[in-house]
């Protein structure tokens, strides 16, 4: 009986906490479909009296949110695909090829993972400035096309793949690229998925880099659009909340499909923010 009571108490406590944790989201979603009068009513109402889905349409008309959205998705997808390609190539070289200075180079790679982005931020901006890429897609994409973290993560996974499988392919006349493409990549899907989800979310949620390298509104990402939006429409909470829901949606979907990979990425990254 005592045990039973304890268990019920624990359930109430933990579900209460969990509800408190996601309450801000529920509040955001519900606010996004309220009409402005109801938003500013006191005491606040939880459930909307009427659903105003046109808030979303209005948000997309008040600011070019569709454009911001396209920019964010385009950049996040390009960077993710790019990083999968470059990191798996580099990881393969470190895991399987023998070349002069390999281990030293690998440790130097590892060492760059310890560098906080604040140190590289200013010169990276200057490099893009000299290249004439400020306020363009390359400024958002190119610096993210490869990473030491991705290389490290994939290399560790590649090391666990038995070498015999590759050797059989070499004997059949397969090249190094062929082996990477036909044998390693298909076997490394879990590691690639982890890297993909992690990279996609990181880029889609990025704010500071977009803030630094972008000037014109048509280049804005969703995050930047939202941040600028909150200054310009300080009383339009219906639109701001609709915008926030929109900015959250792709990430929630990506997370829903790749939860275990994402959590693996958290455990692996350790040093990253």
């Amino acid at each position, binding site marked *: 009986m005592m045990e039973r009571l304890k268990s019920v108490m624990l359930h109430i406590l933990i579900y209460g906490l969990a509800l408190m*944790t996601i309450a*801000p989201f529920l509040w955001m979603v519900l606010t996004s479909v309220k009409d402005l009068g109801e938003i500013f009513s006191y005491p606040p109402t939880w459930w909307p009296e009427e659903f105003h889905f046109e808030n979303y349409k209005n948000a997309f008309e008040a600011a070019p949110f569709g454009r911001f959205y396209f920019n964010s998705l385009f950049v996040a997808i390009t960077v993710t695909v790019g990083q999968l390609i470059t990191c798996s190539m580099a990881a393969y070289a470190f895991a399987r090829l023998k070349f002069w200075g390999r281990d030293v180079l690998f440790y130097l790679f590892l060492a760059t993972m310890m560098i906080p982005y604040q140190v590289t931020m200013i010169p990276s901006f200057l490099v893009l400035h000299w290249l004439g890429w400020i306020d363009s897609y390359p400024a958002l994409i190119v610096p993210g096309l490869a990473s030491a973290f991705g290389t490290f993560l994939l290399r560790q996974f590649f090391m666990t793949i038995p070498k015999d499988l590759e050797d059989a392919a070499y004997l059949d006349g397969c090249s190094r690229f062929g082996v990477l493409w036909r044998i390693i990549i298909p076997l490394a899907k879990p590691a690639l998925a982890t890297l993909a989800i992690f990279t996609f979310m990181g880029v889609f949620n990025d704010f*500071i880099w977009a803030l630094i390298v972008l000037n014109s509104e048509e280049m804005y990402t969703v995050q930047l659009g939202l941040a600028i939006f909150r200054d310009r429409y300080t009383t339009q909470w219906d639109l701001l909340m609709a915008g926030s829901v929109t*900015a959250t949606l792709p990430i929630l979907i990506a997370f829903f499909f790749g939860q275990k990979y994402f959590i693996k990425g958290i455990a692996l990254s350790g*040093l990253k923010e």
Partner: protein
Amino acid sequence: MVPNLPTDELNNPEQPNLPTDSLSPETQRESEAVEYNENRLDKSGIQAFLFLSPTLVIVLTFIVFPIFFSFYLSFHEWNMFSTNQKFVGLENYIRLLSDPEFWQVLKNTLIYTIGTVPVNMAFSLAVAYALLQKIKGRKLLRTMFFAPVIISPVAAAVIWRWLYDPNYGLVNYSLNIFGIDPINWLKHPQGAMAALIIVGIWKYFGINMVLFSAGLQAIPEHYYEAAEIDGAGRFAKFWNITLPLLAPTTFFILIMSMITSIQVFDLVYVLTSGGPLGSTEVLVVYLYDHAFKFFNMGYASAVAYVMFAILIVLTLVQVKYMKSKVYKAI
């Protein structure tokens, strides 16, 4: 299996030989495959270079070069638009350390770190521990606790700005139920920092919960069983088994959370922009303002290097202590 004819062997030296008596078939094949790879495929590192070059170009341009260049810049005065990078020696560093505003920024960052990290850790350990008990819907619960981690800090900050609204916000409304007068959270120097700390705890506690869960699950069950036989209660088990065995995980999370807290930017920028009266101006906001608002590239680089010095100490402690564990996890 087609037996190898002697002529085939002569024409194709890469073909595996039939096993000899001295070597097992496995060893034989392995050693020959290695020889084959090195001789025919690697072409003295050219191939390796091809595999590495895209990553090398990016890492050299956007990490390695910047490390040295910002170090160089930190000894110069430069507004980015003039061609003249004037050498000033240690002046940027001296100016920085004698600037009360910089000390205030350091203090704010420290307050934020002390405010978020311990509470976050205690809270996330408690939840991770509770989730190990017999609980229905554990997966759903884990997702609910983890949700704040995945959404963008910008969206999170926008939501919380609304929750903190002095007139219509849910926070004041809830406090009012308990008879607490409304507070204009984000316009009040202490209130703004408190508000920021609450959001910081809420936003990142899911990460710690996941890491604590992993650490807790790694503790072998038989320790608890043995303790039970000795008559240990729940508290004794937690205190004498869980906590000591969890120490490496706890240490890892402590350092990692400190690093994350010192680097906070997005939440602050969107929630308070460093105000009111600079009460939430943290290191990265200060760095951003000096670099990209006032274009003091040299001074900002010095700030970046001071930050680097703080973070590298934490990182090295982490790497040294956790090396074996991190590798094992992978």
